[in-house]
């Protein structure tokens, strides 16, 4: 039974990857079309400012964001595909969990599965708050790489949980770390576009499609908001991890490799938050810090787990 469920899990994950690939292509087509079509201001920020400038009377106040131009048909198709892919992706996670009757995040493969599922999940949910669909290529691309490496290089059949990992703190620790990672991923994506946009606004040569995206100021604020929520999750990850380490090893902090990197990431993002409040560091420089922070997150996952020995490595590849 266990093994059958595991196989179904893998099948649904492959299906999800197929659908995400389609979504990736659609997002890419959308980007290409944006590059060629003539610019229409869609930035929420700039429209608001226009109405502000007119000093409109109360009844003219338009708080609803402007409608998506229907020209972004491919974006809408792509986003629907992402949602569909995510349903399979989530089913894959659930089946894997049922196969081993424990939350499926005890090894690298499962961590790849759950963290990418949360990245896509956060990407979907965040659209209610802000339209960030323009990150679609980045998010689906990143997810495909994560799932690809996960299934090809890290896959292990379902195994019972080693006693050392049998802890509620593991569940909390990993889910919060994944949520933090998801928000950092989105924040870094926004920061990258912010950098490109700032270049364009400075009058340098740039991609035409940037004209259809929010302005650099707006992007900076969005980067900040997602990253800062990610930082809260990461702070909690740090605390939950320490509690678990204390319960498991008798010390809450031992500068184990993985702990070192969790700390480094936390400090980089604390630096990012400070940069946002420091003259001369707003804008481009702080955006770089958000990107470096996320690179450290990837490094922590991909390099530290695999190549650098430490206590945490017994979680198994």
């Amino acid at each position, binding site marked *: 039974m266990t093994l059958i469920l595991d196989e179904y899990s893998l099948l649904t994950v492959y299906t999800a990857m197929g659908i995400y690939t389609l979504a990736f292509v659609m997002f890419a087509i959308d980007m290409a079309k944006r590059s060629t079509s003539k610019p229409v201001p869609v930035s929420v920020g700039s429209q608001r400012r226009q109405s502000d400038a007119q000093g409109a009377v109360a009844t003219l106040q338009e708080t609803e964001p402007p409608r998506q131009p229907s020209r972004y048909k491919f974006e809408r198709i792509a986003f629907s595909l992402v949602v569909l892919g995510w349903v399979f992706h989530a089913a894959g996670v659930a089946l894997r969990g049922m196969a081993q009757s424990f939350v499926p995040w005890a090894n690298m493969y499962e961590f790849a599965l759950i963290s990418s599922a949360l990245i896509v999940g956060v990407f979907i949910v965040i659209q209610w708050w802000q339209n960030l669909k323009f990150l679609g290529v980045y998010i689906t691309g990143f997810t495909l790489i994560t799932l690809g490496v996960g299934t090809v290089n890290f896959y292990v*059949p379902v195994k019972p949980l080693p006693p050392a990992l049998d802890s509620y703190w593991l569940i909390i620790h990993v889910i919060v770390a994944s949520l933090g990672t998801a928000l950092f991923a989105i924040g870094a994506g926004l920061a990258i576009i912010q950098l490109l946009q700032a270049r364009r606004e400075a009058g340098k040569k740039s991609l035409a499609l940037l004209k259809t995206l929010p302005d650099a100021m707006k992007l900076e604020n969005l980067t900040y908001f997602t990253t800062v929520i990610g930082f809260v999750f990461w702070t909690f990850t740090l*605390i939950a991890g320490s509690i678990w380490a204390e319960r498991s090893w008798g010390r809450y902090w031992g500068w184990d490799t993985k702990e070192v990197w969790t700390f*480094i990431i936390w400090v980089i993002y604390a630096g990012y938050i400070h940069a946002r409040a420091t003259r001369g560091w707003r804008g481009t420089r702080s955006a770089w810090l958000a990107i470096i922070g996320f690179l450290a997150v990837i490094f922590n996952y991909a390099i530290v787990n695999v190549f650098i020995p430490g206590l945490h490595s017994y979680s198994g590849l």
Partner: protein
Amino acid sequence: MRTALLLLLLLALAAVPGSLVPQRSSNPNGVIQYFKDNPDLAPILDALQLFDVFTSMWFSSIYLLLFLSLIGCVIPRTAHHLRALRTPPPKTPARLERLPGFSTVETTDTDAAVAIESARTLLRKSGYRVRVFDGANLSVSAERGYLRETGNLVFHTALIGVLFAVGIGGGFTYTGQRVIVEGQPFVNILSDYSSFTPGRFFDESMLPPFRMVLDDFSVEYEQENVNALGFPIDYTADVSVTIPGEPVSRGTVKVNQPLPLLGSDVFLLGNGYAPRITVTDGEGNVAFTDIVPFLPQDANLTSMGFIKAPDALPEQIGMIGFFYPTAGELSTGALTSIHADLLNPLLTLNVYTGDLGIDDGIPRNVYQLDVDGMTQVAGGDTGIEAIKLRPGETAPLPNGLGTVTFEDANPAPSMAKDYADSVLRFATFDITHDPSRGWVLAFALLSLSGLLIALFIPRRRVWVKAIETSGAVRLEYAGLARGYDPGLEPAVNDLQQRHRQQLNIKDT
């Protein structure tokens, strides 16, 4: 701010080598290995304190400077904030139209005084601190979100608390390790530990008096999942504890489930097998009989142990033993254990005679045998096969040196041999005491809650101004936020709408 930022980035950078080079604190064997592998580079790195990054001069200087600047930052800010808490909202700006969320309502349904009074109550109810200004025009100035700064100060101050709790509390900690075989006692005194790491302020009287016997150590193995047959899924150590003046109590220690004992915690870290071995010498005397913990070498508990019989006559005897709980053969013909449980236990012994080198008074590691002064007489290249024993069996040593017996810990009378309890198990315990951890946790959580408040409580100013114009009143609304605040404009609009409702101003 710039100093703090640079020091933070420097701190992140300085921590990186701590993950690339093995650290004495977390991985002492890795450091020894590093010295062996890189004999030229290692001393240079050591001089730069790269094997002790987190206690090094340079790392410490960075974080001490950071915290100095933090203290230097928090104190004046706290003072400033305390003053701000007692200061009423600032004067309404002369011109509101440049400010976020600006809007106007033209009406004849009310007059300025009524409108401002109603705005004042509305804002008050929404948690703003308000102040009415009576200048050229009547206006109300309101501010909320002082908690934001409070949260920020709590966050930073609690970080200082964490540092102090770790720094001071760390001095009172201790950690000791001890291997206990089933049936054996451990007494909580310094000399009964196999290794012990005290904090700076440790004193032996801090060890609480207790005695702990490992009654039973049991392991549960996976039976169903064919991908992981024999995978250990649960370890349980049953202990009985004696505290002076109290009846004996029983307790269990599991992985992730330490046993609290008089302010210390007993953790289960490792386990293995401890065969009982008896050696008689060439003259027929018992030269050695003891339970020997064998150190596990792999996941299936292929284990290695050392037997030293210094009193054996005519010559001292030493043995290097391998124990396989479930012996199996590799394709090369070498033995290995294929399961961690006692399904097919086998002990092999390489035998040496000569000088054990332990008469010179230098203490020797029990987990080591120095064979330099000895001659191998069985196993390896000697041409004589290593001795192989199952529980309960005895074999002669070569050259009439005597005999060796692998005692069965649970001799069963029946013929159907079940090895289940034939060899005792041992467990490795870590006994730690850390009075700082509660403080550290409390400060960390305080810091986290400060962070939440600081990041998510908006600090806003809102103004409503009433300008009387020939028979009508023009109401102006605007706000201002500290930092990024996507909720500001909706909040100002919402205020404007509720204000109109309250004043019964119709939509135009």
